[in-house]
């Protein structure tokens, strides 16, 4: 039973097996640049770990056994993974999560402001139009 991470994750070096250690890489962390241990997107996990990571929305099955054990449709798995990405990006408020799902925002910048998503312009055009109608 195998699954691959869909996004890069920080690794907990204190608890892992020797086999997992070989999959760890190191990357610069934020502006401070202190290297941290990571599992890059695409890292493959096996067994119960693979299934647990899929159930959290962190990984996607890479064999049929894992897909069968997970028992989710593609749409359900996508929704789970999008939910998990929002958690990783610190998008916790329900209204912000709706904006992320709709592609209006892609997260927050370092000042806590919205980072525009693919539908940012469309959303703001519609918002302006609604505000103008309400004024009339």
């Amino acid at each position, binding site marked *: 039973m195998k699954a691959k991470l869909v996004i890069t994750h*920080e690794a*907990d070096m204190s608890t892992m097996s020797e086999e997992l250690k070989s999959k760890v890489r190191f990357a610069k962390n934020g502006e401070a640049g202190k290297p941290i241990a990571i599992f890059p997107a695409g890292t493959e996990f096996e067994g119960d*770990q693979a299934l647990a990571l899929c159930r959290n929305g962190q990984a996607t099955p890479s064999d049929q056994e894992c897909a069968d054990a997970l028992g989710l449709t593609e749409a359900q798995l996508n929704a789970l993974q999008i*939910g998990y990405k929002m*958690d990783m990006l610190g998008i916790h408020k329900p209204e912000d999560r709706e904006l992320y799902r709709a592609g209006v925002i892609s997260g927050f910048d370092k000042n806590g402001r919205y980072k525009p998503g693919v539908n940012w312009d469309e959303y703001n055009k519609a918002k302006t139009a609604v505000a103008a109608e309400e004024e009339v």
Partner: protein
Amino acid sequence: MANKIKSKGTALLMSIASVYTAIPQLKSISISGEKSEVFENTTLDGSAFKTKSPTGYVDPASISADVFYDPQNAVHAAFIALIAAPVATNFKVTFADAGPTSVVYSGVGFGFDKSASPADGLSGTMTIETSGAPS
């Protein structure tokens, strides 16, 4: 120069299968109770003010995190499973500063209170008793 750091974007991550996994739908987090222990060393021939000295030990922190609780969510379920079958588990708190600064706590005691009220979404409060020094 000290900066005012926003709370927005602060994350609490739980080690699951050695992968730091974000706790979903976090509303707030509080880390409290970490303090050095002292003992009273006032003596009968001492001054009016009682005196204290450090024992050299430190009370570790407790973490309390409020979340919008989703009974179907696997990460919430994984946390709740620790209550009945506690296993020392690492939790990482990542702040939203430029670093960003992260602190890892070893969680050894776990609790989860649930609440439903008309004025709020279904909510839960996770409590994590930590052990030893954060790293």
